[in-house]
């Protein structure tokens, strides 16, 4: 300690340390908050990684003579946009209030509702569409049927985004709203707080649905995805399919740009770090309880009905197919779990790296959300066939990486990582910048900060992203068919390869076994998580 005299009166003890101590150089966590040269290259690298497999087909696209845009494709694209818009609005309208209700209130059937919400994500939209037609016949034909299927499929994303946003609001804010205007004010506050993440989730879910031809085909509605599938499967014209895919992606980016512009900087209002007290759920009473219960009942009905339609033949007349269904499940169980968890892990890792690279800059956030739209609405076949071309051109010693289950997990993870990225952006933005500043100032290194503070804060969002992405990845039958190593099919793929000429009862049992197993797993996981929290 050095003693200094001051300017005015006498000597006093003042500590002045040497400017640079001989201490271990540490990487400051400030790198996460300051502008840096590493951000844009990281963002670009992640999206390029997703798009590089499409390059072989995109280069083929430039040489194709066939025109892309004719009246038929334009009409199909129009149908696609209409269905996507209807699905976005409907999923948002139902998903937002139920997500808010799940985060703020206790009500009868709350846990059941939370588990039931996940079920649509387990099944590819085609199966949901089939379930509806088995129940209701041709009455759902056209855009309404397709929009209904996609709404039910997207709604869980909205609900979980709203739920996560609601959990981020402090008890003080909620209590202040309650004092100011009762439960009505609380609901409005929560809805406004959760609306932007919910809207972003709805939009991105709709983008993901754009590349799915299933419901359109079941309901007899020409869509861009079915036109692209025709180019691939019927015409074997990869170049034409690539051009059509690009056109769709560009149109979607244009249409979704206002959404990206609006939502990106509002993804989360960073909390004041002082506001750390979490609110406890309150029992919903009176009209609120009735409304919540009613809404939940509607949603559960919409979710369970197509599953019932799909699985009804199992119970009506086909118990003898149950052992066969179980044996298919056993045969593919290992690969199914591997693909889901591997894709989920990769999606979460890439999504959170992207979120950290984006940071809090509104311009970067807008670009990334727009890029997420672009990536999500590209048909998986474009990327998958391109990857197959690439792997066929490289030496055989790369096969353990590029033709293995790892490659499946990687491609599936790349496909759905934008969903994880949106959850990650929301979660990262809710971390107060002052946490990082305090860590930097008081000598906390980046690894310690990440391990002790950042990861625990991001963990709930990472867990939710892991589950959502794993489920969405499993539902991607197209990728599974094209990329799975011979003999390593997943259970959803097995359902699709069996269903063409299998008895209805077998298909129904397969769907029942799949949904049932996943539901038990999810229920167990949610109980485990809730148990650890209490």
């Amino acid at each position: 300690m050095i003693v200094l005299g001051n300017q005015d009166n006498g000597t006093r003890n003042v500590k002045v340390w040497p400017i640079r101590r001989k201490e271990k150089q540490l990487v400051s966590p400030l790198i996460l908050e300051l502008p840096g040269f590493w951000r844009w290259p990281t963002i670009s690298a992640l999206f390029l990684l997703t798009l590089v497999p499409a390059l072989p087909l995109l280069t083929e696209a430039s040489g194709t003579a066939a025109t892309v845009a004719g009246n038929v494709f334009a009409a199909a694209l129009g149908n696609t946009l209409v269905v996507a818009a209807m699905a976005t609005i409907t999923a948002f309208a139902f998903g937002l209030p139920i997500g808010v209700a799940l985060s703020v209130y206790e009500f009868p059937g709350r846990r059941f509702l939370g588990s039931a919400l996940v079920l649509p994500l387990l099944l590819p939209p085609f199966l949901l569409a089939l379930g509806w037609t088995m129940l209701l016949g041709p009455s759902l034909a056209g855009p309404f049927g397709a929009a209904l299927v996609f709404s039910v499929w997207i709604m869980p994303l909205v609900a979980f985004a709203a739920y996560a946003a609601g959990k981020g609001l402090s008890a003080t804010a909620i209590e202040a709203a309650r004092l100011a205007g009762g439960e009505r004010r609380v609901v409005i506050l929560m809805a406004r707080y959760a609306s932007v993440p919910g809207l972003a989730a709805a939009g991105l879910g709709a983008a993901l649905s754009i590349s799915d031809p299933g419901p359109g085909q079941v309901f007899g509605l020409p869509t861009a995805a079915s036109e692209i599938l025709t180019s691939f499967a019927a015409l074997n014209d990869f170049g034409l399919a690539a051009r059509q895919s690009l056109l769709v992606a560009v149109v979607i980016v244009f249409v979704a740009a206002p959404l990206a512009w609006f939502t990106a900087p509002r993804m989360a209002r960073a909390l004041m770090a002082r506001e750390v007290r979490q609110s406890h759920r309150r029992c919903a009473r009176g009209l609120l309880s009735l409304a919540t219960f009613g809404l939940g009942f509607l949603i559960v009905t919409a979710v369970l009905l197509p599953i019932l339609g799909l699985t009804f033949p199992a119970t009506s007349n086909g118990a003898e197919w149950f052992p066969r269904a179980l044996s298919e499940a056993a045969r593919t169980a290992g690969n199914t779990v591997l693909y889901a968890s591997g894709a989920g892990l990769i999606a979460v890792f890439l999504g959170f790296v992207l979120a950290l690279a984006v940071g809090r800059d509104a311009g970067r956030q807008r670009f990334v959300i727009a890029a997420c739209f672009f990536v999500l609405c590209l048909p998986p076949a474009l990327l998958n066939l391109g990857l197959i071309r690439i792997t066929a051109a490289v030496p055989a010693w790369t096969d353990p990486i590029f033709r293995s289950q790892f490659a499946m997990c990687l491609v599936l993870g790349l496909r759905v990582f934008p969903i994880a990225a949106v959850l990650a952006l929301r979660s990262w933005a809710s971390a107060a910048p002052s946490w990082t500043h305090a860590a930097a100032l008081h000598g906390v290194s980046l690894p310690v900060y990440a391990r002790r503070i950042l990861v625990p804060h991001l963990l709930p969002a990472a867990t939710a992203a892991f589950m959502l992405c794993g489920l969405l990845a499993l539902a991607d039958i197209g990728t599974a068919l094209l990329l799975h190593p011979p003999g390593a099919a997943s259970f959803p793929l097995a359902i699709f390869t069996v269903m063409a000429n299998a008895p209805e009862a077998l298909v129904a049992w397969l769907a029942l076994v799949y949904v049932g197993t996943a539901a038990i797993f999810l229920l167990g996981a949610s109980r485990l998580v809730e148990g650890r929290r209490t």
Partner: protein
Amino acid sequence: MKGDGFELRAISKSYGKQAILSDISLELPCGRHTALLGPSGCGKSTILRLLAGIEAPDSGEIRLHGAIASAAMRIVIAPHQRTIGMVFQDLALWPNLVALDNVRLGRATEKAAREALALCGIEALAQRRPGELSGGQQQRVALARAIAAEPSFLFLDEPFTGLDWTTKSALLDMISRLARELGLTIILVSHDPAEVLALGSYVVVLEQGRITEAGALAEVLEAPKSDATRHLRTYAIGLGDTRYKGAENAET
């Protein structure tokens, strides 16, 4: 010693198109407790963040003990090497860590962390998370964290927002005592005249990103030139504070 402490030379800082600080030059020597006053948005907290090294100025220089600490768009001396402890406006306590871990996560040892908590009177709450503490208790944890690594400077960015007068008064007394005992130099950002009178010996007034008045507390109270210092003088008179006539202030 000449050159000890902070020196800002022609500092400017903007956020997007909005200019926050324009050509600020200021000396903040060791041993002189300085209070930064001014209306909201005038740049007080920005100055603290620039001094702390958690942001870089757009132009100008910041020196620490004569050496360049920050220059235009560059942070030369890392924040953790500037021997600063800071209590943030939002306290910046890490919510998943207990109070003890909040204090010792950085450079402070466990012993020093416990001593800091004891100095702040909350050693019994060491195993509680911030969410389980009252506002005043959270303030004390934040203060303990700021002093645990034996800094030279203590930055306080409106640290008492939302506290009742009794709690605030106790905290002010505690900080004054700690500053004397540990030889800390305080840089305070505040709207509250009571905090300025309790902790500051030198006052700097900012308006619209520029320094409009600066001087020793006694001089400023004697002849205020800005609304902020006039308000300070009125408050001091109301308190019966005689320092405006040049009596000794909080420096020792």
